[in-house]
């Protein structure tokens, strides 16, 4: 064999072996000792790293759970109750089952109800439009339709409906991580209880203008007439700042408020169609698609 080749092979091999030995000792010396349970828990977590739990990443959440005394204040929205039960099993602690939540868009100002008064020609971001302009309509509280929520959702659960100009949130994909809630500059999206069979009732309006002014801006606005408060047998509705709000913990889904609302601002979702036809043709649709 040519001596050049021989020496090259020997030299490179010895460099390789020397490096391997050095690396081995360095790895040993600087090894970070970790609780093996962190890896176990991370395996059962969904790995979305979405931050909904309030911690930076699933691995960090695993570490926090190990250190916690009880798991009642920790919840992985993406994994849900099943996942928390699995985590609890590994740690030998109790997991508290929580009602699943769902992001709800509280604006009914579709194109048909809320007239456009200007054409917005700027950067198509809700944050920009909200901070510097009222939007394309006269409602200072309603959806701007530029889709910051759509961009923020890490699970692709939101899309803009081109016929209404409002976001639509998918029942299956939404895990209530809360990204859209922070993204919306007008705080229109709220995390509410998903409800049995996905049924929920909520006031689909954020308008805090006085009744007459609100009605002029949008046909589906809440005018704070107070009929819903009177109709609710469970004292779940409050009117504050000319806007009604339904507490989802008290609401029993009886839908009496939906019947009495004159503008159709209160929506019912995922209920079966009513048998008696509503003859009030002046009212906008009350059920969400």
């Amino acid at each position, binding site marked *: 064999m040519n001596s050049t080749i021989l020496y090259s092979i020997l030299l490179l091999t010895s460099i390789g072996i020397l490096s391997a030995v050095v690396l081995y000792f360095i790895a040993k010396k600087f090894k970070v000792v970790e609780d093996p349970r962190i890896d176990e828990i991370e395996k059962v977590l969904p790995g979305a790293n979405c931050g909904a739990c309030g911690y930076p990443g699933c691995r960090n959440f695993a570490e926090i759970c190990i250190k916690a005394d009880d798991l009642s204040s920790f919840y992985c929205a993406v994994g849900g109750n099943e996942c928390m039960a699995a985590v609890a099993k590994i740690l030998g602690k109790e997991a508290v089952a929580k009602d699943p939540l769902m992001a709800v868009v509280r604006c009914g100002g579709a*194109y048909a109800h809320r*007239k*456009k*008064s*200007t*054409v*917005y*020609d*700027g950067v198509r971001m809700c944050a*920009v439009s909200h901070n*510097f*302009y009222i939007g394309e309509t006269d409602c200072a509280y309603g959806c701007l339709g530029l889709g910051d929520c759509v961009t923020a959702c890490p699970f692709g659960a939101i899309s803009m409906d081109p016929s209404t100009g409002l976001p639509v949130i998918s029942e299956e994909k939404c895990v209530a991580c809360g990204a859209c809630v922070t993204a919306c500059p007008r705080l229109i999206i709220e995390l509410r209880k998903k409800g049995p069979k996905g049924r929920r009732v909520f006031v689909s309006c954020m308008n805090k203008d006085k009744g007459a002014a609100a009605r002029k801006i949008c046909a589906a606005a809440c005018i704070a007439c107070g009929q819903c408060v009177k109709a609710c047998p469970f004292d779940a509705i409050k009117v504050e700042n000319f806007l009604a709000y339904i507490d989802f913990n008290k609401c029993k889904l009886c839908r009496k408020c939906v019947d009495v609302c004159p503008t159709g601002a209160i929506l019912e979702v995922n209920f079966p169609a009513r048998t008696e036809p509503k003859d009030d043709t002046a009212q906008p649709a009350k059920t969400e698609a």
Partner: protein
Amino acid sequence: MDKSKLLTISLSPHAFGEFSVRKIMLGVVAALLPAFGAAIYVFGLGAIQVILVAVAAAVFAEYAIQKFILKGPVTITDGSAIVTGVLLAFNLPSNLPWEMVIIGSFVAIGVAKMSFGGLGNNPFNPALVGRVFLLISFPAAMTNWPKPLVNRLAVTDALTGATPLAILKEGIKNGEKVLDLMPQLPSYADLFLGNIGGCIGEISALALILGFIYLLYKKIITWHIPVSMVGTISVFAGILWMVNPARYADPLFHILSGGVLLGAIFMATDLVTSPMTPKGMIIFGVGIGILTVVIRVFGVYPEGVSFAILIMNAFVPLINKFCKPVRFGESTAHG
């Protein structure tokens, strides 16, 4: 809702200047017209073929990639592919086979521009990447220039000869003195006007300088890069020449021969791949100048401009990071 009657709202400013990307690109093409004229006069049909093939291939490459691979908007109308095609052609000999020209265009657009994200995202000058790719892949064809002013109606099979720089390099390698080589080299007048061999766009200094004046007038480029690059070459080559005039050619020869003026005025000043502040531009130009002379004098290749520019393109992000514009009021704030 009749949208046409509604007022438009947007944030200020509500008035805009006259610059547009297309106007800038067309301005560059217009500035290249004198060099184009010189090339046709000196090289004839060969030059026309190379230019047309390069431009067509570049535009087609961009169209095909944007439409079929990226499946996004097609932006060939902004003129940047045309400019890349023209500049690539200007860096090639006029007798290059058309298959190689197409390969060069495809590499320039596909590899150097589109793979980084299209216009504005490429770190390296696409035309130069295409040219260097061809130089390294087909060294014989790329260093085989047709004799100037003869056989202009022939596209290939033209009589070939070496460029002034190549003659110089060969001669010095063989131990001849620069002064003895001078009779073989073209006169300064020929170098200035363009009666010399070389790549299509680099031969006529006069034509290129006319283009430079046009670009300055239209405010498409600023003077910083060309002046610092040519200035550095003059100084560096000048020092070498003063130390040993037998071995090193004089600075005027260096500036007028090869791709220095084409590189300084059109290639190094490429907006996307050059620094963003005047201070950065001068550092950029100085770097290119030093590298050009080093490659020409101490390297194997007779011409170093393309490599010098590409190497300095790699430093541009670093230059941008350290050469920030002067912030108004900082000197008062910190006493």
